[in-house]
């Protein structure tokens, strides 16, 4: 480990230093990660943050109760803007929920080992974001008590849902995504929960983590199937994560509204989702790694890699914006042309330019190595990107709806206090779940981090062939068979 000249804290193209910085071994990784959860005295800062987040969650619940009592008239919706904050929030949160599975599935298949430092964190964030997302389509229907009609369950009405509706595809896509992400996250956590169980000092912890860890005992016969299952889940989750936001984009693209009815939507939405998801991971991990002392596990190199993903996906999003404009002009459709000119210069021009600034211009700062290594730049940029991505969905949804084919039916959407507090409350729910996660569950995938440490790699005398981490199947019996004892000495 010390023989390498590469500074592991930073990314050096073409050179591979160890992923865990500092003088760490398996013991210190366990101690660092478990220590956060095992700290008997909950930090005061956690209580402060939790009180704030839980307060906002309470506001969310109150807003939902008010909505249910009064109907969706309490939102600023009107004719023609029938979708506004509700669906904007839905698409925003689903988008954020894409980074976790991208990191754990797609980067896994691409053998990006640095993902091990941040995948648990990102997966947890994914699940909490999808919880927030799932809330909005459920509450935005006028008659919430019949929301279960979206599921194909036999009823006395003998009516089945219309499977040709993209809105129903959405129900299936988002609920599948939720369940698969949850299984992926939980399965990854089982060995780490077993670690917590075996270190538990109190009876309650022993029982709680004991139940959660399902009796995992680290048997290699189990690890073997576990890894097969992990690989299969990654292979299944990869097309899934790409499909979810594609299906979300069909909600718009399948309609005939100018500004929505474009074929670029699925890839454009997926790139945007990954972009916003990575930004949210960054916003959360920068304070967490500093506060919980994880700087040697989540190093500057991880952050630098994330900056590069943000730069790439942000530029893709920028390219999509430009392509939309080009096609609006090149397609020679008056309504489409008008819609895009209207976005940039009409009544919502302020929202449009916030979006362009935050999503296209801000990430360009990551072309410079200095900004990829400066914490405050990353933090501010990632927050701005989150703002920008919320506005992207707002611009797509509201500008297209507010001015469609007939000028006589044009309108303008203004949010009410209920709209704004519901949005704020959804952040409260997200952070409440997130704070509970960092307090009670292992924040870093210890088993996975250990398996990419140099100490986990057998030396060449023992290993012949490519025994790389995950998936590479080494040649059978590369460990030379020992000579059997010469005579019939039985054991």
């Amino acid at each position, binding site marked *: 480990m010390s023989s390498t000249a590469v500074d592991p804290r930073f990314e050096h193209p073409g050179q591979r230093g160890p992923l865990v910085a500092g003088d760490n*071994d*398996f*013991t210190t990784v*366990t101690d660092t990660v478990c220590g956060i959860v095992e700290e008997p005295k909950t930090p005061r800062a956690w209580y402060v943050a939790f009180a704030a987040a839980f307060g906002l969650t309470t506001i969310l619940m109150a807003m939902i109760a008010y909505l249910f009592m009064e109907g969706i008239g309490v939102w600023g919706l009107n004719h023609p803007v029938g979708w506004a904050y509700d669906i904007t929030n839905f698409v925003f949160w689903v988008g954020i929920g894409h980074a976790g599975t991208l990191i754990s599935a797609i980067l896994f298949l691409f053998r990006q080992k640095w993902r091990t430092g941040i995948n648990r964190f990102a997966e947890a964030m994914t699940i909490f974001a999808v919880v927030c997302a799932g809330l909005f389509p459920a509450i935005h229907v006028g008659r919430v008590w019949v929301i279960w009609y979206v599921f194909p369950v036999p009823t006395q009405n003998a009516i*089945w849902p219309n499977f*040709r509706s*993209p809105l*129903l*595809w959405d129900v*299936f896509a988002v609920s*599948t995504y939720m*369940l698969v992400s949850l*299984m992926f996250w939980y399965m990854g956590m089982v*060995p780490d929960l077993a*670690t917590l*169980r*075996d*270190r538990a000092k109190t009876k309650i912890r022993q029982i709680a983590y*004991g139940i959660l860890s*399902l*009796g995992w*005992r*680290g048997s*290699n*016969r*189990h690890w*073997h*199937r*576990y890894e*097969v*299952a992990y690989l*299969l*889940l990654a292979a*299944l*989750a990869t097309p*899934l994560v790409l*499909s979810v936001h594609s*299906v979300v984009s069909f909600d718009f693209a399948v309609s005939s509204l100018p500004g929505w009815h474009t074929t670029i939507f699925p890839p454009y939405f997926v790139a945007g989702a990954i972009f916003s998801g990575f930004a949210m991971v960054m916003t959360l991990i920068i304070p967490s790694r500093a506060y919980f002392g994880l700087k040697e596990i989540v190093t500057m190199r991880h952050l630098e890699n994330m900056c590069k993903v943000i730069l790439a996906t942000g530029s893709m999003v920028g390219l999509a914006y430009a392509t939309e404009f080009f096609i609006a002009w090149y397609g020679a459709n008056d309504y489409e042309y008008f819609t895009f000119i209207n976005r940039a210069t009409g009544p919502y021009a302020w929202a449009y330019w916030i979006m362009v600034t935050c999503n296209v211009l801000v990430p360009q700062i990551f072309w410079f190595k200095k900004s990829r290594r400066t914490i405050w730049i990353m933090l501010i940029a990632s927050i701005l990107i989150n703002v920008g991505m919320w506005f992207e969905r707002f611009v797509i949804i509201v500008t297209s709806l507010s001015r469609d084919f007939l000028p006589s039916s044009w309108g303008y959407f203004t949010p009410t206090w209920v709209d704004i507090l519901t949005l704020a409350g959804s952040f409260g729910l997200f952070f409440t779940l997130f704070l509970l996660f960092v307090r009670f569950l292992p924040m870093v995938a*210890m*088993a*996975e981090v*250990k*398996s990419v440490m140099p*100490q*986990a*790699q*057998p030396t060449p005398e023992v*290993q012949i062939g490519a*025994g*790389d981490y*995950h998936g590479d199947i*080494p*040649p*059978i019996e*590369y*460990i*030379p*068979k*020992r000579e059997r004892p010469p005579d019939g000495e*039985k054991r």
Partner: protein
Amino acid sequence: MSAKDETMIRDGDDRRLYGLAVEFDSVNALLQACASVRDAGFKKWDAYTPFPVHGLNDAMGIKHSRLPILVLMAGATGAGLGLLMQWWMNAVDYKFIISGKPFFGLPATIPITFELTILLAATSAFLGMLAFNSLPMYHHPIFASRLHKRATSDRFVICIEAEDPRFDDRKTEEFLAALGGTEIERVWRERR
């Protein structure tokens, strides 16, 4: 090196020996030891590690898992059920009359068929892994082992079970001692 605690089975002791555990502190030592145990012909034994050690499956002689076949079947079931459900519900049991469009069109069914394929395949991968591993299993004799406590953190443990036909109290202990582990422990089943 010898087992420090309770080398002898005392008279009247109703505990039964589960096996002999030996601890290693490096991946290299573990891999070599596992290859030796494998070549010595033991069948009922296992290695306990804090993370999946690569190459250990071969060193232990573990065969390929059949999990992928299960997952393939579950995925195919999901696709079939998804298509069948949409066809029966929208084209047979409750026909949706929309602008004279056909009651069943393959392209419109693809998203839900795809999602159900993934859902069933992924669920079977997760539950199948647990089922093949007989998990959850909250009672296992190895939990009584002191050495095993660190096998989920930073040590590697091999345990040869007493039920193995080749197991012999003294010879197996000598054999394990020669593997170069750091410590040997006798693992007892719980008192009945």
